[in-house]
């Protein structure tokens, strides 16, 4: 089984509520869920839609074909009916549309009878619960959990009224539910909190904001300073202040806001203050499309900041990956005293997916801080020359008589400004030497599919989900296809692509940008040349169906 329900309408009509109730109810029946959200940058009006896909097998992508459209306005039907399966159905409020081929449900009428017009989406939800044969009790439970006790009573009534409106077509048996349902930004935030991040400062920018929102919601419970700053310039400078003082800090933004942070990123480079920063990509240039997705900041992020300094860039692939990689990023940042940049993208920040619960016992907080006994010099040398390039890091205020001086200018071992040629070379070499150690930390890309495939896909970040679906389906149909999915992407890992790329007949680069930025890195750092490319840059995420369709053309 594999069904998809699309709920669409104008912003502000209640799509979100229906989807929340639906995805959670289905999940609690033990099914895998994948919710894709497509919305415009407006508070009211326009056309938004979300689609919940659910299956008894794991799902990692949304699909093109749909089984049901729950339309909150007629436009939704016009825009999406082509994607409806032959036996698919459309439901709509009978006060909104009259055409006979739809299922007209008296949603508004019931809501009026309940003296709360706002609950009409819940009436529709009730109809869906019965249609798919879901448990009314579980639906009620979800209403309570999602909407809270203040409005759950009237919504439960709306649910019951709606339940009788549509005949039952399916019977989704209740199974064990061992998963969590989470999106990429929530997973990133949880990973950061688990890793001991207790300082988040940022400026709201779509699609990065929900990390800040989640952390703010948990701030008092967990003791986290969450601060909305005047601009992104201030945000990264402030985060560096917090990190200098010894607290694990996080900041993040989307393309335009990250652009403002590059000034302070360079400061992190020369002061050697560890920091984790994420860029939730959206289409550019400049403001681009605020609520759409793209993977076009790769080259920008790996080169962000003026001057030369070591940094690490990790692209997050799934919510599960986001949690563990974020936690890992904090350890690497502190081990090497460098900025670690996480790249995510609107698609990953917003889609909701069922995954295994996180194992918090796997998270280790490794601070790599110097102890008083490590400081043998009479005056503490913040930038002491060492074999590894990593100097003992002391937290200010912790050791009597030892002070910590960090500086944006070129400096000597004490942190004092010094421009001698000898010192400059030694200090540059010291910082760049960290790259040698960092090489050992780099994880090679994930590999999925058939061993030694004839067709090797290369991709990065959240494109994973769609590629995974396509690879699985094509191999089931007798194809010889595999894929490398990059997570760690700077310094660029070359081992696995060099090995596998030499054996494959075709190497297909799949990216959500117009220039093939990953491919350009492969060209620059390896002996491998891609033979085909599927580049999508219309602001919408690619899915498995699309990849299969496009591969058929090129293979």
């Amino acid at each position: 089984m594999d069904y998809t329900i699309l709920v669409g309408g104008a912003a502000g009509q209640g799509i979100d509520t229906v989807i929340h109730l639906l995805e959670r109810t289905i999940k609690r029946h033990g099914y895998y869920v994948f919710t894709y959200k497509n919305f415009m940058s407006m508070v009211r009006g326009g056309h938004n839609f979300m689609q919940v896909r659910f299956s008894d097998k794991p799902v990692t992508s949304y699909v093109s074909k749909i089984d049901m459209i729950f339309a909150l306005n007629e436009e939704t039907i016009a825009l999406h009916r082509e994607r409806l399966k032959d036996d698919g159905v459309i439901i709509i409020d009978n006060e909104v549309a009259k055409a006979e081929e739809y299922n007209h449900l008296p949603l508004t009428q019931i809501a009026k009878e309940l003296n709360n017009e706002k609950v009409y989406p819940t009436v529709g939800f009730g109809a869906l619960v019965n249609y798919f044969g879901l448990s009314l009790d579980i639906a009620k439970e979800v209403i309570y959990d999602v909407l809270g006790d203040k409005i759950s009573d009237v919504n439960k009534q709306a649910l019951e009224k709606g339940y009788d409106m549509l005949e039952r077509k399916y019977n989704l048996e209740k199974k064990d539910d061992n998963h969590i349902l989470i999106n990429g930004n929530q997973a990133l935030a949880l990973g950061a909190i688990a890793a001991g991040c207790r300082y988040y400062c940022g400026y709201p920018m779509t699609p990065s904001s929900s990390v800040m929102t989640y952390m703010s919601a948990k701030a008092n419970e967990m003791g986290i300073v969450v601060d909305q700053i005047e601009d992104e310039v201030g945000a990264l400078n402030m985060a560096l202040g917090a990190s200098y003082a010894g607290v694990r800090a996080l900041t993040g933004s989307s393309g335009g806001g990250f652009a403002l942070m590059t000034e302070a990123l360079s400061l992190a480079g020369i002061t050697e203050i560890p920091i984790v920063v994420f860029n939730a990509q959206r289409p550019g240039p400049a403001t681009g499309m605020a609520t759409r997705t793209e993977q076009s900041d790769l080259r920008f992020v790996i080169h962000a900041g003026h001057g030369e300094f070591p940094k690490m860039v990790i692209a997050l692939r799934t919510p599960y990956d986001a949690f563990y990689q974020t936690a890992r990023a904090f350890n690497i940042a502190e081990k090497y005293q460098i900025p670690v940049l996480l790249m995510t993208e609107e698609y990953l920040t917003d889609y909701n997916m069922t995954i295994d619960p996180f194992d918090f016992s796997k998270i280790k907080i490794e601070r790599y801080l110097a102890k008083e006994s490590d400081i043998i010099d009479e005056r503490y040398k913040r930038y002491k020359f060492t074999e590894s390039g990593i100097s003992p890091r002391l937290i200010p205020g912790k050791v009597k008589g030892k002070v910590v001086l960090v500086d944006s200018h070129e400096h000597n071992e004490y942190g004092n400004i010094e421009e001698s040629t000898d010192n400059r070379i030694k200090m540059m070499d010291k910082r760049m030497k960290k790259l040698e150690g960092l090489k050992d930390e780099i994880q090679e890309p994930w590999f999925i599919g058939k061993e030694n495939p004839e067709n090797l896909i290369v991709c990065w970040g959240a494109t994973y989900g769609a590629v995974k679906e396509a690879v699985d389906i094509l191999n089931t149909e007798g194809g010889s296809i595999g894929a490398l999915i990059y997570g760690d992407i700077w310094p660029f890992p070359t081992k696995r692509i060099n090995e596998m790329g030499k054996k494959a007949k075709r190497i297909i680069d799949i990216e959500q940008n117009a220039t093939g930025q990953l491919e350009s890195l492969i060209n620059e750092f390896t002996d491998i040349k891609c033979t085909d490319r599927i580049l999508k840059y219309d602001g919408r995420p690619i899915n498995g169906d699309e990849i299969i369709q496009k591969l058929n053309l090129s293979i």
Partner: protein
Amino acid sequence: MSCEYKVYDPSWCPGCGNYMIKTTLKQALEELDIPPHKAVIVSGIGQAGKIPHYIGANGFNGLHGRALPPAIGIKLSNKNLTVIAESGDGDTYGEGGNHFIHTIRRNVNIAHFVHDNQIYGLTKGQGSPTTAKGQKTTLQFDGVRFEPVKPVALSLTMGAGFVARGFSGDIPHLVKLMKEAITYKGYAHLDIFQPCVVWNKVNTFGWYKKHTYYLPDDYDYTNYEEAYKKALEWENGIPLGILYKVEKETYEDTFEFIKNGLPLVDVKLDPMDTEKLMKGFY
């Protein structure tokens, strides 16, 4: 004193007002018995921005205009540190104007000393945000074409709880002001007149001596309206001293866990403490 404030040789010009400010800061910290490892001097860029190198306390010499954001991050992370932000007029009122405004709103417990010489020194004599309209500079050949920032009036209107003006030519008076600013609980703005002997031939030591006067002992610094009037005084004499001082809740005290808990930096961390948050995703 438990620890000496050591000095690294300054690269300021002979006769620069920064020397006096440096001496004053050292004296203020010593008289308050704050050991170097418990103080952090945060600065931006410019001649004033070099001061962390010459004081011997903890130091964060950051980017142009950006002294205040890291200062806030440091103070919220470790409330036990004495945090002093120190920077020039260009750094504070020009490049960092946005941070200045919003730091006042926050009222974090930091002292902010602005070395105000009404000129850009390090970049060789261009007009600064406090250079007088009409004053000719190495860049503004026909004179500065627009109005200067009025620092103390600006911080007053933004709601600063401590607003003062000092002069580097009177060390005992400035020490007193610095000590008041450091011990004030909240954001303390101290604008300090300081001659730039090379680039500003108008606002010289003598000019400041002639154009300033001390607020009398019976001046009521809790009267906002009076303070605002004083903040705007210029042509007929510029007042020195504490213009305004009232008690306000600090930003860090609005965080329950900072106010009543350990400094954030000392809180023990355990990933397992976060596991409970996962229940929101079932």
